[in-house]
């Protein structure tokens, strides 16, 4: 309703309205996305602020209190060493979400960089898209498994077991998941490059670097943001799958996937220990996916226009 806006302009001098507000308006109409956002915010709060409120050390071993069911002292019960499950879930969530976020950022960075360069600079296109196709042809999960098995040691040596594995997993997920973003971004950039405002900028004499920063990047934000949400979901799932295969973080370092993996053997006796991390993973990924869906709709000009 662009003309509608124009009409309003005629009537009153309103303060500028950023386009993201329109996106938000549209986003709000997507109920699933809104609920997803709410749940994700709750989960984020729980894993960041939670440990301040529920201050039991997730690694504190209270052997006398092991294998307890939910109680006042331990709302979610304890594990086989008497460690508080709630505290562990919060600590694990922090790692899982941190992995998801950083891996997504890395993948986005790579994907956007490669996509923009390939789309904008014709000379680099062949090489970079060849690289993208190459990565797409590589069998990713096996490769991921390989990378984790192969490099966990050198890295955990250099950065310590936890940071090392963190880097490794983030890196492994990041470098195996940027290709879709790169393809989408390249496609967008190719289209944008033909948009007249890019020509306009060129006719002004804007150098390529500023052209990319000022005209290209802000306008590929929509697909990038959608990629980002999918990227987080994908990274969280991948991390927990790796942990489930016993290849993720070391056993003494809780992540949701790891907590679930460790509890699978005991799932008949203490089903809550499997269900809680399983639900935590699923809920996070679900809400992120819904947010992505909502964002996609909200950012789609065809839909927004209605």
């Amino acid at each position, binding site marked *: 309703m662009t003309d509608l806006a124009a009409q309003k302009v005629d009537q009153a001098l309103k303060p500028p309205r950023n386009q993201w507000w329109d996106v938000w308006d549209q986003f709000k109409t997507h109920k699933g996305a809104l609920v997803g956002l709410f749940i994700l915010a709750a989960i984020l709060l729980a894993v960041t602020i939670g440990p301040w409120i529920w201050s039991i050390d997730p690694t504190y071993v209270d*052997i006398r209190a*092991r294998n307890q069911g939910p109680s006042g002292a331990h709302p979610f019960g304890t594990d086989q060493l008497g460690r508080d499950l709630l505290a562990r879930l919060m600590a694990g969530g922090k790692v899982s979400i941190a992995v998801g976020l950083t891996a997504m950022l890395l993948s986005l960075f790579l994907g956007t960089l490669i996509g923009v360069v390939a789309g904008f600079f014709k000379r680099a296109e062949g090489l970079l898209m060849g690289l993208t196709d190459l990565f797409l042809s590589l069998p990713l999960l096996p490769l991921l498994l390989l990378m984790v*098995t192969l490099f966990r040691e050198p890295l955990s*040596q250099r950065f310590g077991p936890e940071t090392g594995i963190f880097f490794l997993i983030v890196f492994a997920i990041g470098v195996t998941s940027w290709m879709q973003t790169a393809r989408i971004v390249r496609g967008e950039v190719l289209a944008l490059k033909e948009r007249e405002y890019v020509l306009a900028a060129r006719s002004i004499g804007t150098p390529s670097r500023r052209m990319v920063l000022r005209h290209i990047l802000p306008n590929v934000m929509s697909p990038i943001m959608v990629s980002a949400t999918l990227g987080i979901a994908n990274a969280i799932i991948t991390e927990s799958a790796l942990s489930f295969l016993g290849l993720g973080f*070391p*056993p003494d370092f809780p992540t949701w996937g790891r907590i679930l993996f460790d509890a*699978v*053997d005991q799932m008949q006796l203490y089903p809550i220990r499997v269900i809680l991390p399983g639900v935590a993973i699923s809920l996070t990924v679900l809400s992120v996916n819904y947010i992505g869906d909502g964002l996609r709709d909200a950012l789609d000009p065809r839909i927004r226009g209605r």
Partner: protein
Amino acid sequence: MKLRTALLGAAASFALAPAAFAERGADGHVNIIYWQAPSILNPYLSSGTKDVESASMILEPLAGFDEKGELFARLAEDVPTLANGGVSEDLTTITWKLKPGLLWSDGSAVTSADVIFSYEYCTHPEGGCSQAARYEGIDKVEAVDDLTVKVTFTAPKPNPYNAFVGSTSPIIQKAQFADCLGAAAQQCTDANFGPIGTGPFRVTEFKPNDVISMEANPNYRDPAKPAFATVTFKGGGDAAAAGRAVLETGEFDYAWNLQLAPDVLAGMAAAGKGTVINAFGTLVERIEMNMTDPSPDLAEGERSTVKHAHPILSDMKVRKALSMAIDRELLVEVGYGSAGRATCNLVPAPEMFASDNTECLTQDVEGAKALLDEAGWTDSDGDGVRDKDGKKLALLYQTSTNAVRQDFQALIKQWWSEIGVETELKNVDASVFFGGDPGSPDTFQKFYADVEMYANNFDGTDPEPYLSQYLCDKIPGPDNGWQGENINRYCNPEYDALVAELAKTGEIEKRAEIAKKLNDMLTKDSYTIVALVDRGRNSAHSNTLGGVVLNTWDSELWNTSDWFRVK
């Protein structure tokens, strides 16, 4: 034969109601599950337990061990001993006699040539035989006649029962493997996947890392056995799934090595479809104390070598205090349940070799504290960590990556912190930790940590080679490519002398005596090795499977010929 009959009796008394062994194959089909899948059926090309044990239903050695760790004859007529003249007085030869009339599953006769061939096969320099150690010290193996083989050793061997004994060194058929000597061994897929044997079963189909289908060996020496006509041996998955399949869903009859938390196992057993059985061997989970300084400040090549003694752990009081702070019973409960028992010994079995060393079994935190005070380690700055001469009592504690080990680490760290010891935990992927790559700083041999935890055991029932790992000249270091076996760099001339004496002693009681002494020197006298748990094994069989006797000295499937269906 006497021993065999006795054994049968034992098996019978163990099972509920032994059905008459009327006919071979009368009991139909049996399902076995190993959560590690066998990848090859030739034990000489793999020493993975899964491979050796699955092959033990097909291939047999001359003699094996029973559930008590005692030798009994399989293909041999008798176990040769000094007493029956099978072993020469000077301990340099042993003469084996095959049972007459033995047939391979293809119907040909078993002869001494097959025995000699098995020796040749495994000792071929290009063959890459993983059991080569069992044939060490052999000068020659020769046929006396068609059924008699004489093994000559290069030096007197008080324990001559290595070659051709136990499921790791079975007899393979010369006719089948003749073209597979040396480098060609790798190419003989048909033979490696379907060895012709003398055991109760023979292979009908082998899908590596997945499943073995077997049927009763028509030429098995006991015409009434085995009771089962066919076997499915499934591999893969995890211990929980295997346990579930036997104990809860009843899909399988036998599950191997259920490394599961005790309560989990108990929960599964409660379903009532099967029984958990357990037995103990020589596998001991222990903490090794580094007697040398692993400090990274030292020059490469001097780190963790005898050039520098450990600044903290050289003091026995500290080592003892660390041991005293540990509650081994609790470790067992958390990690192994019925498949473990607390121990203070490096050699916990066989019974006659086990020292009665129980002093460490009760946790004594106060005593440990006192001992540390005595050693001069006090918490002078009040931060909860003891120190001495400005040096903190802080240790790096490494082990391989494994859920139970990390639980142990967490528990022990907690106990040590109670006595004022700060512990940094580290875990290394098992393939690296045990990988033996001299280039990697994280192998257990390099021991770039203050203490490390792992488990080890010895083959068969004789601890001599095991105890002789702690000789001064077996300390790993840059000179021997870090390949020595004296992991904690223990060096005691007295110990070396005693090991030399053991090597000369043939008499079994005497040997036991010496072995116990050696064990004590390493454990309660010096605390260089802090034994934690004697790890036994849990397996499970369905309530309808009879004749199962768990054996930790040899293959678990050592007596599948006696298994039967309880009706």
